[in-house]
């Protein structure tokens, strides 16, 4: 059974002209697995994440498609059911750890409120346990502190503890480590994945950090201009990308470049769509484009749901280069 099933989701932000943020997203996440959503800023990652909890801004209009989380049709829920669904199934970890904690409330009190809201044991001992599980040294000292008195790494660990103590079915982490330094980053990600796997929680991780994605996630979905252009096992998609955009993105990863080699960047900028893309949205930037690309809307090609009309040809090429290498 899949934890998340998104089918042909299209979403526009009102405005003149309206901005098409999602242009037919298909995405599936298996129960208990972890999927990383990667792509440039503006590709629609955060919008996908917000729709999962129906937290998209008021200016967003869903044009078509369906969103199912743990078998629940999210878009069809009425208010009380939506509230129950969010409480029982979902948890978010935000980018800015300090902002995800209430500045007027001591940390212990915030832990207590979240535990109480789900009818769990909220005793002081349990709160200490929660912080210990997140490897916070000296929890008794941390509990009476206000969020501005702790470090960013600690605040993010507390935020993850707050998110996971409700035992959510799905954890959405929107670049939870972007604001942390690299030493703390590694540890926070490990804690998040260890805890979530222990609870059987499915993880959707939005990230720009490709090496970390390759290390931690089971699957990767690459987004471009509001569509998932390629998805599959993390090692496959990042190690042997087929779609020209995935290839370009993987090539920007500094850790793959040998000493003295030039780090390539993708020329141009992602497009801002104002309606359904008629062709391939990556066409203007694509080094492998053909004349057909501009006016043939690509459809997913198995096995990686690659959105490119030259998929078969490119796959052969990738295989050849692997053989030669």
């Amino acid at each position, binding site marked *: 059974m899949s934890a998340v099933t998104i089918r042909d989701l299209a979403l526009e932000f009102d405005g003149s002209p309206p901005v098409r943020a999602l242009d037919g997203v298909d995405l599936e996440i298996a129960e208990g697995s972890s999927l990383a959503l990667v792509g440039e800023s503006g590709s629609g990652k955060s919008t996908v994440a917000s729709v999962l909890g129906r937290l998209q801004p008021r200016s967003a209009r869903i044009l078509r498609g369906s969103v199912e989380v743990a078998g629940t049709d999210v878009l069809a829920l009425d208010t009380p059911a939506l509230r129950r669904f969010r409480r029982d199934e979902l*948890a978010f970890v935000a980018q800015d750890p300090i902002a*995800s904690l209430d500045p007027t409330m001591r940390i212990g009190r915030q832990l207590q409120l979240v535990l109480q809201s789900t009818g769990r044991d909220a005793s002081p001992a349990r709160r200490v346990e929660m912080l210990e599980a997140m490897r916070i040294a000296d929890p008794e000292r941390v509990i009476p502190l206000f969020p501005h008195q702790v470090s960013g790494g600690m605040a993010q660990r507390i935020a993850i503890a707050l998110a996971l103590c409700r035992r959510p079915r799905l954890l959405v982490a929107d670049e939870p480590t972007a604001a942390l330094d690299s030493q703390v980053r590694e540890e926070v990600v490990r804690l998040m994945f260890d805890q979530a796997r222990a609870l059987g929680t499915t993880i959707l991780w939005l990230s720009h950090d490709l090496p970390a994605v390759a290390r931690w996630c089971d699957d990767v979905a690459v987004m471009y201009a509001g569509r998932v252009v390629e998805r599959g096992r993390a090692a496959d998609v990042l190690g042997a990308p087929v779609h020209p955009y995935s290839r370009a993105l993987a090539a920007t990863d500094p850790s793959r470049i040998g000493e003295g080699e030039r780090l390539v960047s993708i020329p141009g900028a992602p497009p801002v769509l104002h309606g359904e893309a008629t062709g391939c949205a990556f066409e203007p930037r694509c080094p492998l484009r053909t004349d057909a690309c501009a006016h043939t809307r690509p459809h997913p090609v198995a096995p990686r749901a690659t959105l490119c009309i030259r998929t078969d040809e490119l796959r052969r090429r990738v295989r050849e280069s692997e053989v030669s290498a």
Partner: protein
Amino acid sequence: MTITPTTTQRLVTARDRTFGAWRRVDGLARLATIVLGALVLLTVVAVLTGVFGSTSATIGGRFAPPSPLAPLGTDNLGRSFLPRLFEGIATTLVVSIVAVLCSAAISTLIGMIAGYYGGAVSELVMRIVDVLYAFPALVLAILVSALLGPGRPAAIVSIVAITIPLMTRVVRVATRTVAERDFVVSARISGVRTPVIFARRLLPNIAGTVVVQASYALSVAILVEGGLSFLGFGVQVPEASLGLLIQQGMLAMTFAPHLLIVPGAVLVVAILCINLIGDSLRDRLEPRETRSLT
């Protein structure tokens, strides 16, 4: 070597907790707090004990200059002016404080609703508030007292009507910025009911703003009460309020100027003190700059 806390150290921390906040207040605000505190204390003592004399007994000739029996002289009916002054301060303060509390409660509620829901709800609330704001303060006050009849209730309702637009706007903006922050979103995700989000997440985070705005509203309230009573639409004789005393003092301005100057000076000092305290509160309570992680 381990350092164990000594008795002195513990004393110091206890003292810091009590006086730390006071020590961080700047000198001007400290002076203002002391002056206003003294004024309120004196007024409470005077009204409760009548230690400065009766407010209604005639004790000498009309418009008599200051004397040991009547430290601020006598008024147009030969009553000692000092107890009348304290009665006036008490009325003005009570009317203003009650009005500002009402106004703060109403504008916090509607400002939070407008800020949290945004969109059409916000438009509706803010346009109604704008209509209220479009009326000149005194015209609005005169309209209210024409509807309700002059007196304390009219003064209170007028002050509420005048201060609501000011506070609602600020509360709405403060709520909007708080409502967008991640901890409110995560409260929503964890299925917390909206009233609970309002009371537990939004209110503590905008409380500082409300308190600061209320302090400014209080000085506006005192001015409005003074203006209304001065024009005869507010508190009526035989009661006293600062505005009423100023109005009566004006009639005797040429031969007993202290009857005008003293209540006028009290009004100015009270408003000045409240504004200084308000500024100091704003420096301490307004939401901090978002703390950066680096």
